[in-house]
């Protein structure tokens, strides 16, 4: 049943005040032949108890696994205070802060967020979020093409080590504006793009997209790539994992001049996995580019009495002012997740975030070490990595995954599906949420999975087929 407060008496009094007979009269301007006559094929209303029972059952179906999946969405510990605060009605149920005076809480928070993201990426300015990491990249590409006045090219170079879903998303969005993404192939030894490969690309492009760590967890030689791009007149777009930035060189310091734009997925900063969203995309850039930036930006200013205050600024870039001439169509963004990220970053601070990065990386190394002791397992790439790694197997990974799943472990992302060119490989991520005991358990399970009789013995033990 709906959430309306109206009593019968209310309705009667209100109809009377309007001067109509009944509710139907309020819809008199709608042509009768358009009105719904049949009952909607929608289930009957459930009360809160019933819907709670329903959703608990549904949620249970998906629960109970230990996950080693990463590939752009990372399970980190989120301090309890984060969502206790995010859930406060004042954050949860506010609209976009168009009335600045009644939204100083949210606005100041975004200003703090912008400061944190700019500093984390080593750039000068930040917007207030975009839909997700992949969309942030799409917008960054549009922005770079607009901004690179010197280049007339509609081509953008994209390293082959970019997250495949980022690439397709960027393609979906930018191809309609006739932008062409040109992929620079990776080196299958190192797992990254080697500088030498770039030589064959002329300066016929507006920008270069570098993901660090790349989709495989490998680290690109960002300084060299950035310098090359700048020498060719390309702008550099960095796609980065914010957790890694507590440890890895910030885009603003890549090469001689630094990347021009940084973007990425904010999810690791206090946002739960939640089946893929809502997350948020972040976007920062050099100050000279701010007028090409999409999305909202909060500025600090003063009120009539000279008191500090915060407000949305540079709105002339946005659709509600510029309409067809706006820098982007984005309106609703991912504000609430920015609240989560800002509180998360405040709780962790520079040292806390670094420890998350180091601990995750450390645990991944522990797992790799253990796995390498098993027969038929190899590390796919030689480049240094951060907290995520590609492992190759002799046995088909689909079988391995399915066995591990019956043991309650989601052992990794099957690259046979996502990046077939990598061969029979798993992309595996460990974060600080996994204990040494978990990792040892994973190795034991994997050992069994790799043994010849894993499937059969499992069936005997559990009376269950593999749940694939």
């Amino acid at each position: 049943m709906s959430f309306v407060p109206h009593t019968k008496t209310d309705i009667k009094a209100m109809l009377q005040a309007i001067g109509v007979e009944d509710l139907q009269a309020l819809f008199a301007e709608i042509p009768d032949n358009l009105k719904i006559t049949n009952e909607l094929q929608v289930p009957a209303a459930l009360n809160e108890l019933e819907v709670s029972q329903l959703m608990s059952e549904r949620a249970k179906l998906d629960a109970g696994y230990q996950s080693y999946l990463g590939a752009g969405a990372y399970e980190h510990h989120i301090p309890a205070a984060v969502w206790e605060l995010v859930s406060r009605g004042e954050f949860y149920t506010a609209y976009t802060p168009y009335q600045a005076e009644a939204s100083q809480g949210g606005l100041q928070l975004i200003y703090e967020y912008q400061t944190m993201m700019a500093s984390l990426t080593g750039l000068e300015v930040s917007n207030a979020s975009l839909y997700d990491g992949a969309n942030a990249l799409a917008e960054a590409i549009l922005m770079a093409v607009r901004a690179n006045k010197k280049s007339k090219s509609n081509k953008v170079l994209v390293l082959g080590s970019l997250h495949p879903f980022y690439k397709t998303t960027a393609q979906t969005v930018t191809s309609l504006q006739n932008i062409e993404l040109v992929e620079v192939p990776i080196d299958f030894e190192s797992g990254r793009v080697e500088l030498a490969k770039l030589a064959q690309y002329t300066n016929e492009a507006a920008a270069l997209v570098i993901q660090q760590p790349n989709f495989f967890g490998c680290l690109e030689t960002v300084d060299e790539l950035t310098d090359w791009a700048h020498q060719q007149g390309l702008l550099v777009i960095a796609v980065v994992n914010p957790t890694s930035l507590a440890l890895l060189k910030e885009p603003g310091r890549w090469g001689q001049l630094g990347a021009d734009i940084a973007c990425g997925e904010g999810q690791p900063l206090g946002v739960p996995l939640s089946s893929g969203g809502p997350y948020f995309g972040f976007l920062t850039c050099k100050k000279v580019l701010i007028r090409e930036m999409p999305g909202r930006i909060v500025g600090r200013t003063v009120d009539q009495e000279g008191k500090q205050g915060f407000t949305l600024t540079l709105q002339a870039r946005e659709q509600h002012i510029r309409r067809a001439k706006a820098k982007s169509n984005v309106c609703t963004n991912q504000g609430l997740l920015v609240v989560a990220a800002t509180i998360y970053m405040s709780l962790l601070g520079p040292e806390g975030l670094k420890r998350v990065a180091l601990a995750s990386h450390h645990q991944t190394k522990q797992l790799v070490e253990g796995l390498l002791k098993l027969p038929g397992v190899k590390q796919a790439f030689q480049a240094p990595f951060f907290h995520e790694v590609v492992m190759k197997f002799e046995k088909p990974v689909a079988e391995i995954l399915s066995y591990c799943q019956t043991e309650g472990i989601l052992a990794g992302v099957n690259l046979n599906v996502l990046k077939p060119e990598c061969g029979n490989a798993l992309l595996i991520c460990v974060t600080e949420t996994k204990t040494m005991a978990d990792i040892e358990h994973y190795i034991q399970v994997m050992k069994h999975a790799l043994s010849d009789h894993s499937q059969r013995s499992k069936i005997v033990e559990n009376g269950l087929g593999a749940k694939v």
Partner: protein
Amino acid sequence: MLIFEKSQPGRQAKAIYLKAQSAATDIPANLLRTTKPKLPETSELQVVRHYTNLSKKNFSIDGNFYPLGSCTMKYNPRAAHRLAMLEGFLHHHPLSPESASQGFLSCLYELQQMLAEVTGMKATSLTPMAGAQGEFAGMAMIRAYHQARGDAARTEVLIPDAAHGTNPASAVMCGYEVKEIPTKADGDIDLEALKIALGPQTAGIMLTNPSTLGVFERSIKEMARLVHEAGGLLYYDGANLNAILGKVRPGDMGFDVLHFNLHKTFATPHGGGGPGAGPVAVGKRLVPFLPTPFVAYENGRYYWSEQSTNLQSVGRFGAFMGNAGVLLRAYIYMRMIGKEGMAEVANMATLNANYLQAKLAKAGFKLAYPERQATHEFIITLSDQAKAFGVTAKDYAKRLLDYGIHAPTIYFPLLVPECLLIEPTETESKEELDRFVEVMCQIKQEAQTNPELVKTAPHTMPVRRLDDVKAAKDLDVVFLG
């Protein structure tokens, strides 16, 4: 005070800190960071107190009447929040195997079905993350449709002048040129102008109905006929769906594609600017072009239908599959209001708007479309008052804040001068509406007797009126102190 001003070097929220690890010696030094990022160094209590107190400086639905036109600020059920945060959903990785995702997938599948049903469409894709992205996806489908038919000449999209800014912006992002269609004095679109604008170059038209003027476009059927005859398709901007839920369906009006704003119609929270969710639903013609992935069902199993099996799809709109947690909340809301509740939403939203409109008119406020029925929202114009006392729509907006009421949408749609677009929504009570009328009358009184009071409002907020010009001129978007 900024959180950075509470920071002290070396301070830590210790209980949250992981045990220290030695440096990552396997990573080459030239790839490592050498500077300390400017994150606050604070205690847990400092953080909790800072953001608790910041939150108190926000208006919100939970605290205030929020009649922000076009934004549908209705009650966001707490049950939806709680249930979408159940562990099975919250810790579910987007790339989990389908066999470990049946709970989540079944909800999304049913949501797709329900959304198609309430709009009279054939199929739904849930991936767009807000209304504007839904628009983009929808227009991309229209483009793909024409292209698939080899109809490359259609380069133009028609958009009424009353449309939301995202409409033209989205059309342009899809590579289209935008042609504005004027609105008549009665609030309906000028059919004659439409006829003239239509042609072989027309890819389609983008419409809201009811329009952002708060009136129902009466000749919609005729318009649909005209556009279709000209070879174009019709896009429905679902922002105003709240007005017609369970009453009329865009599919029945002749629309080919639409987006939802689940964060409006289906009561998911706005979160201070997002997240939203902008699923798209399509009629028969556009089914092959739906964004991927969407949820399919076969042999008792829910699964993601990907690009690989939908070769004509316009593609992927994000790294994963949309704002899943928002979709869950909308699903829960729809299951709670159910079949019975859909029309009740539209009925009471419309009743509330018409009641407010009648009462304000009676109190001497000028309606923008006095001859029309309100839908779920309506417009008043203060241009007379602006002329007489120099008190503008903005001044009213700011003064309302002093009374604890969030301002309606102002200066939108652009064609009505000094306008307030007022949308009370169905979850507000008659008492709350009566109070709004009272306060509006009070401000009108103030505008006459003490215009300065209104012009310098707000007086009771954490800050007085802010200097937007300075904000843009002396850009300060990052704390450097």
